[in-house]
């Protein structure tokens, strides 16, 4: 029975139970499911060459043994199998391979195999998220066949591109533009056309990447076809209902002297957003759209892993998608300082509220990843939520791990990539470090603090502007995802601050600590800047900032 048939023939309580019943699990029941399913995965892995590589000929007999014997893994551990798509090495036959950004540049994509069972779980979890997105309380939801959906997520072969393909066999939804039409378009064209259609016909559901949603919310006019003649042309194609709403919105805007907000035009049943920095944009999005967005957690390796509930105030992880382990912040920070250290992991029922954790997953149902470090950091908001009747921990997505700079969910910049770009650019840079920062509009960007070589003759001729433009060109040329940022969001997420030569070394000499090349803590950055700004003769001249 498809989801639509269930909507027609089953009581809402039954549908809720089927898709969202996991929210009623007790912690013990949740862990029981986790442990049972991870042993299924161990069973599958033990029978394939990839698993035998990690098990070393002896399959673990218990979850404890599995955690003790299998090391924490990264994509490098699977690259020789997954990049050439060697299916014979895997625990189950994949039906689709999805891609995602690895590090950019020379290592552009990671690949993840999806089995039939994984897709089944993925579908069920997406539908659960859709139900929850339209819900205002436990068991109360409003999903209807034929709803208009504006879909603004990365297309295939990215994981989010699977959403429409998985949902369509289950329920009739009117995607704007249609899935077939969207396949022939770039992401930008798809988003723009989608907004235009939504303006004309209205929309009921909105799936989007947080950064794009935020951009679209702030530039509603430009996305919907611009002002003046464009608006008139647009009005001609509008349905009577949308025309009425548009006219009312324009009237209220003129009357109150405020800009038109999306909530004036659209009455959404559900609003779903994914991606980095969602928590930064959420309140503003809720205010603009009149409905609080429901955040999803996921990625290419874990698929749709977690969802918020009807309260939209914290993620709950699905019990049957992955087996979750968590590395506390102090552990992964210690590993940063001492790369030989193996951080300890904790299970879902061993967490502490308010702590940040790096996520480690074992993909269930025949997935390829065992104890895999996705590179995402989550904060455990609370261990249970009595108001919503939840006995499960809720999370908030924080960011990538400190060694990765994620800009708007599009690109992942690492130390290796920056080194490569600097090398390619042949700029006479000495020491440098990079951090992720946010501008006044809330957009994230890469802030590169760099020293010029004092003894290089060309250095004196380099201004900040030239440095920045030069590096930006090389970033765009080296990293395709970085290029998309510029193309889709119209932003160049690079800011360069030139430091006096020897500032970083001076900091190290003074504190005895080196500055991490990527993701240095904010207080370290401030200390370095203070050293940089100290009067000449003491520690050097002022910093020069350009964007």
């Amino acid at each position, binding site marked *: 029975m498809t989801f*639509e048939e269930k*909507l*027609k023939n089953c009581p809402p309580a*039954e549908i809720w*139970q*089927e898709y969202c*019943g*996991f929210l*009623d*699990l007790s912690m013990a*029941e949740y862990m*029981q*499911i986790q442990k*049972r*399913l991870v042993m*299924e995965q161990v*069973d599958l892995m033990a029978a394939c060459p990839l698993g035998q590589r990690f098990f070393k000929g002896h399959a673990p007999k218990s979850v404890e043994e599995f955690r003790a014997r299998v090391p924490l893994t990264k994509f490098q551990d699977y690259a020789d199998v997954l990049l050439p798509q060697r299916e014979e090495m895997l625990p189950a036959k994949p039906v689709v391979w999805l891609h995602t950004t690895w590090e950019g540049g020379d290592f552009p994509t990671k690949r993840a195999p999806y089995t039939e*069972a994984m897709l089944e779980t993925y579908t069920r979890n997406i539908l659960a998220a859709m139900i929850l997105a339209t819900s205002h309380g436990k068991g109360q939801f409003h999903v*209807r*066949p*034929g709803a208009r959906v504006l879909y603004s997520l990365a297309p295939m072969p990215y994981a989010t591109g699977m959403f429409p393909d998985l949902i369509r066999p289950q329920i009739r939804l009117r995607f704007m533009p249609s899935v077939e039409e969207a396949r022939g378009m770039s992401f930008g064209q798809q988003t723009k056309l989608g907004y235009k259609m939504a303006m004309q016909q209205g929309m009921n559901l909105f799936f989007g990447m947080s950064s794009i949603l935020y951009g679209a919310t702030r530039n509603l006019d430009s996305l919907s076809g611009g002002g003046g003649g464009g608006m008139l042309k647009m009005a001609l194609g509008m349905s009577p209902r949308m025309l009425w709403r548009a006219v009312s919105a324009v009237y209220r805007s003129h009357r109150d002297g405020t800009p038109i907000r999306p909530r004036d035009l659209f009455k959404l049943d559900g609003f779903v957003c994914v991606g980095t920095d969602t928590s930064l944009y959420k309140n503003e999005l809720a205010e603009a759209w009149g409905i609080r967005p429901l955040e999803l957690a996921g990625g290419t390796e874990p698929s749709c892993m977690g969802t918020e509930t009807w309260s939209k105030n914290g993620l709950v992880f699905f*019990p*049957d998608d992955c087996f979750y382990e968590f590395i506390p912040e102090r552990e992964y920070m210690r590993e940063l300082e001492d790369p030989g250290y193996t951080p300890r992991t904790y299970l879902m029922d061993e967490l502490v509220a308010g702590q940040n954790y790096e996520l480690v997953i074992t993909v269930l*149902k*025949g997935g390829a990843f065992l104890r895999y470090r996705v590179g995402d950091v989550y904060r455990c908001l609370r261990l249970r939520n009595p108001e919503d009747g939840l006995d499960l921990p809720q999370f908030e997505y924080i960011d990538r791990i400190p060694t990765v700079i994620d800009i708007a969910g599009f690109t992942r910049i690492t130390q290796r990539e920056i080194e490569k770009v600097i090398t390619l650019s042949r700029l006479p840079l000495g020491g440098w470090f990079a951090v992720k920062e946010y501008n006044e509009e809330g957009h994230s960007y890469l802030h590169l603090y760099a020293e010029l070589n004092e003894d290089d003759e060309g250095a004196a001729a380099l201004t900040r502007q030239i440095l920045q433009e030069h590096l930006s060109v090389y970033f765009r040329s080296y990293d395709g995802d970085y290029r998309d940022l510029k193309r889709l969001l119209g932003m160049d997420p690079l800011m360069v601050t030139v430091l006096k030569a020897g500032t970083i070394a001076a900091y190290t000499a003074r504190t005895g600590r080196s500055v991490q090349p990527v993701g240095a803590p904010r207080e370290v950055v401030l200390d370095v800047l203070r050293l940089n700004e100290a009067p000449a003769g003491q520690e050097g001249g002022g910093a020069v900032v350009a964007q």
Partner: protein
Amino acid sequence: MSLNERLFIIVPLISVLCNVFLFLTALSSRKDRLVNAFSTLLGSFTLWTVGSLFMRLQLYPGPDLWYKVSITGTFLVPFCVYNFVYHFTDSRAPFSRTVHGVAWGVVVLLNLHNIFITDPHMVTVGRETRFEYGISSLVVIPILLAIYTLLDAWRLAWRSCRDGRLDLGQFAPMLIGVGVMFAGTMSAILPQMVSLPVDTFSCAVNAVCLYYMLYRRRLVPLRSFASDGPMYVIALLSSTLLLISGYRVAHYAYLRNFYQFKDYEIIVFAVAFAVLTILMYLIVRRLLTAILLKNAQVQTEELRQFSVDINKTLSLDALMRLYRDFLQRCMPGYTARVFLRDERTGNYVMRGASEMAVACRDELAADDPLIAWLRARAACVSYAEFSRSKNFRALWQKEKERFEQLRVEWMLPVLSSGEMVAVTLFSAEEAGKRRSLSQERQAMLDSTAAVLAIALNNASLYEALRRKAQHDPMTNLYNRGFFLEQLRRDFELAHNAQISLLLISLDDFRLYNELYGSAEGDRILKRFADALVVLVGSRGTVARYSGKEFIVSMPFCSAADAISCAENARDWLRNEVIHSGESTRKFLTFCAGISSYPTSAANVDELLTYAGMAVYSAKANGKNRITLYRPEAEDKRIEANFASKRALADSCSSTIYALTAAIDAKDHYTFSHSQHVAEYAAALAAVYGLDADHIEIVRQAGLLHDIGKIGTPESILTKTGRLTAEEYTIMKQHVEGSTAMIRYLPSMDYVIPSVLGHHERWDGRGYPRGIAGEQIPIGARCLCLADSFDAMVSRRSYKDPRSVESALEEIERNLGGQFDPKLGRMFIDLVRSGKLTVHVDEPLPPDAGEHLR
């Protein structure tokens, strides 16, 4: 009464009947908001039709009241239809509903004051009485309101279809019903139709359509018709109708025939009416029960019979057969698989299926999420419901696929004291859309589960007891008693083919126990028992034969199979003992004896005897051996054994002589008794057909049989009078004394069985063990005859010798009592034929010393 008048009575009466009937039926079904809304709608129809009927009949208190009742019902119908659709579509528009309700309340109140329909009155034209009324221009208000209300109801229905909550098809009966009612009501104003009661007729049609609509949604079951309320109404109204139509005829008939009793007419008619009503009730009940409850009754009867049957049996297999037959009858179209909990593992093992072709090789793990879920649900549930549960997420993919492959649709847990003891999975025999199971059928299955739970509980208790009686508690193998029965069954089964018997006796096990402790001894016995079960597998039955002996029956297996099995067991034991992980290296071996039918044994007794002999041979040849019994080999062995025993006896002869001399010293009269007994018994054994080895055993036993008398006080041995009970008890102890002493003789313990049994009697009244018949070793039986005979023909301190013939007659008299009849007869023949030289003491002359007596 004209036809029209009759129609105006009969049609509304049928309509009333129909509405009241449905009303009561709805009341007897499950109550929820929708059924209540339907009952309210039927109530308004009933007001309409009852008012119309009673008005036509001009019943008390008069047409005015009944008109108001009828018109109120009529005016309430649009709102009640709206209310019904509102609940049917599960809509959320409380404000709109309230507005409709208030508006129709006001309209009804105004109409009671004849605002819309004016001046209602009855007129009589010719012989026909009609109802006439005027219409105010304000009537347009209720008409528009009715149109608005019905359109709004239609809007709710359309929206629910548009949103995908309901299918248009579900509203088809309502559309037909409302259409008929609307047409009927409108046609009432046509001149051609004014004389026909089409409005009340259409009202009944509408009620039936709406009832059908609810029935399709499974909100009201058809069998509700067969509840008492509707049946009473049918009976009452039918008899009333009969009374109305037949009263006049009956009245005249009564007056014509019973004029003298005309004062009692009312009483007679009242009684007749009551009887008629009762008869109608009985007929209606029989009819409706036959139509609607037949299946339910059949099910109930099936369940009752099943309950009776399974309570008669304690066998699990029989129980499963009964349950299978029951399911075949009651769940056609489904294949049922029955899983019983294995107490040892906690898993649920498939024990039967309603289809013979289904193999019983499936199992549900104890930690299967389905098990926990079913335990919590404790009732018949659908697989679809399980697939919606949170437990479903914990299923492994292959578990899901298995359930899908089996096409499991329904599941029935069987709980006893909160524990799930069994579960039945019902699979659709044909692929396709899942079928629903009626609530009645589910309830029946739940009742079946309850009955089955008790029966399973009893059967498992019985099984536990039976198991306890058949098994050795330490090794959990079958015990000796059960094994002997099983061996006979195996022999019966395989007597046209072959069967082998393997007897394993651990070597020096007492020593092993003393060296490593009895706990280690018990452990190795258990381990060895488990290993043996695995090694034998399905080829045979393993049992613990005695403390250190195991026995295996292997039907249809050759001696070579048994040897191979024994060799594997020997390898296993060697590995187990060597790799016990302890610093001290242990040592334990066994001797195995194998006998085989038909090559070396002819029956079960021979199989057992020869296997024992083979073990004996293995022990005698140095232990740690596997020996196959072969008759020819046995001869050689016998010869060798005979020689060795004879050599042994010779080497011990001085000891034996010393011991017998010691007895002689104590009791002069027993001089040479042991020698004589040895000769007689050996001769008898030879006649009986024992081999040389056994004859030698008997002879040596004869020599040693009384050496225990060394410990008997001389005063008792030489007492001339009758022994007291206490003295007799002491005297009897010489048997144990003999065996105790023989144990100290090197390697002569083989004579113990014969010595120990020489005072046993064929009838079981002997001592020390009181065994009887062939349980007494053959050597002992020979000794018994020889001993008694020599005692009779010898002089004793308390008697003179008897003649040989007298002694033989005494023996003859005691055949079957004290003596083995067959052996006794042989002995008598042996003596009488003169083949046995008898040593007879001559009687003393009468003047011989009295002290010798």
